[in-house]
């Protein structure tokens, strides 16, 4: 047995295994990490160079930017609320029931996640402009094209798939035994949903709302196609960046970028807090 412990040298192979191999491995991992941090810093520094601090607050508090901020907060809140409300029953059904065509439906709900948002916007635009039903809705119920309801609809379609995905995994993670027990204690299926499933899904639902909201506020492609980019009318924050560049106003674009960046950081912190993680630096 003693021999076994004396043969430590065996581990040090010639071709990249053993200790030398570990060094190369660590170098690749560490190098990638450092490179990406350097790249991010470069991005921030080069962007910050364009800020003219003298006019910073003038632009930030200008009517146009405030309008875009308010509009963005409003439409993405409405869109993600509707998305989560629709996604709740759908994801519950996908998670709890086995029915024919379930897998197909499940896949259909994945399409908006991977499809280019501009294509989604285009499909919606064609529907409201070129079909009888679409035209009827436009003329008699709500006008979507190039109007604020259009932004909400575009964002809703883009983010609802995400909400379904997130909520389905929330429901999937809730052990069926809890629902089983409450049923034997006298609850109907609906009561078991109200008394057990939803309270247990609470964090997941709030989390899904925050993530869809964050995704909605950054939505650009579908919004642009369906609702257009009219200054002070359908101008959300991303559209404002687009319009700023169109008129070569880099300063204004950067300020909007900063607003979106702060919202993104706030959302990330909130999600971490929700999932119970402790922030460590």
């Amino acid at each position, binding site marked *: 047995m003693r021999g076994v412990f004396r043969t430590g040298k065996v581990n040090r192979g010639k071709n990249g295994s053993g200790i030398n191999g570990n060094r190369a491995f660590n170098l690749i991992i560490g190098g990638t990490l450092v490179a990406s941090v350097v790249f991010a810093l470069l991005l921030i520094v080069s962007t910050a160079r364009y800020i003219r601090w003298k006019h910073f607050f003038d632009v930030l508090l200008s009517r146009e930017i405030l309008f875009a901020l308010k509009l963005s907060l409003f439409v993405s809140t409405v869109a993600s609320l509707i998305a989560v409300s629709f996604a709740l029953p759908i994801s519950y059904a996908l998670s709890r029931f086995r029915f024919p065509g379930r897998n197909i439906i499940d896949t259909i709900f994945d399409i908006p996640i991977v499809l280019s948002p501009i294509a989604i916007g285009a499909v919606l635009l064609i529907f409201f402009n070129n079909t009888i039903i679409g035209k009827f809705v436009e003329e008699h119920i709500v006008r979507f094209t190039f109007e604020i309801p259009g932004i909400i609809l575009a964002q809703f379609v883009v983010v609802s798939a995400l909400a379904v995905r997130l909520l389905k995994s929330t429901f999937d993670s809730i052990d069926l035994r809890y629902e089983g027990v409450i049923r034997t*204690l006298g609850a109907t299926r609906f009561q078991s949903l109200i008394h057990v499933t939803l309270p247990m899904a609470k964090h997941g639902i709030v989390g899904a709302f925050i993530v869809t909201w964050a995704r909605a506020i950054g939505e650009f492609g579908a919004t642009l196609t369906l609702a257009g980019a009219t200054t002070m009318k359908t101008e959300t924050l991303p559209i404002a960046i687009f319009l700023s560049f169109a008129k070569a106003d880099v300063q204004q674009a950067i300020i909007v970028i900063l607003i979106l960046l702060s919202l993104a950081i706030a959302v990330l912190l909130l999600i971490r807090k929700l999932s119970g993680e402790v922030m460590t630096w």
Partner: protein
Amino acid sequence: MVMVRDLSLRVGDFELKSIDFHVESGEYCVFLGPTGAGKTLLLESIAGLIPIDEGEIVLNERRVTNLPPERRNVGYLPQDYALFPFMSVRKNIGVGLRLRRMDRNEIDKRVVEIAKELGIVHILDRMPLRLSGGEKQRVALARALVLDPEILLLDEPYSSIDAGLKRSLWWFIKKLHRRIKKTIIHITHDLEEAYTLAEKIGIIIDGRLVQFGERESVFRYPKSPAVAKLLGINNILSARVVDKRGNRIITNWKDNRIVLYAGEKADDIEKDKELHFCIRPEEVKVVSNGDIESVGKVESNVIYGEIIASVPYGGVGTFYLKAMNNGIDRHFDSDYDFEIKLPQERFEYLKLHVGKRVSVRLVPERIHLFDLA
């Protein structure tokens, strides 16, 4: 009373087939089976959580086959108890009464009452996450019992609890059962647990109820090798019939003469038929210690062999014997031929260490013949 008639159901690739049994009111019935045998499915179908394809379920003269779980009035304790983590113990116990829209004061009164009975009044305002395994069990029982269910269904209640605590929980549930006199159906894969608690026992293997009956009759007379193995009997032998006189059967097992009594099964036994039988490890007797001179002498039911492993543990000594014929080891095919248990005192007196050669006797009356194929 629980009566299940010819119950069949299919979930994906798995199938429960023609399950048929009857448990009297107030009886403690344990279903024993390996993991994945379908025990949980059976329990869930009695609770109404899984629809059955065929058959009938009757609880206390009430056909419940097509009733939803909320109308069956069964107390169900799933594995790990599934206490609702967002409710205090008090709320957990009272949730069934709240669903019945009972008056708040009445709910509180009944919750405290059942909590007193189970000794958990002091933890009523705690959250389930902070409870020990034993406390969780009591809360789950209180949550079910407060509704006065017709039966209690326990799904592997002790599978994630460590051995020491487990035993004290067995006693708790046994005492409770004596007091409340409810019919209990309990499933487990733990042999000792089943033996400690059961009055009736059912053996489930591969979705089939292969044996069901009084605890003693099942433990004593397993119907098949698979049941015997599950009951911890590892001495399962296959031998060919050499001769038959009435119900006294003489067989040949690896050139050893083994005599056994077939009882009523004798009628179906002919010469040259292969028989399968078993003998409990504690019923194999050590007859001669050390090397014997009379190796050549053929004596029925005496097996000569070498000890290849020995485990003295917990007051019982277990050793594993490999049979040898005329001192020559002919059987390299199996690890051991017999598992033998005897009281540790005797085990030490006989100095049964590895490498020692002994003769053991299989008492004919103690050999149990399995059902004939």
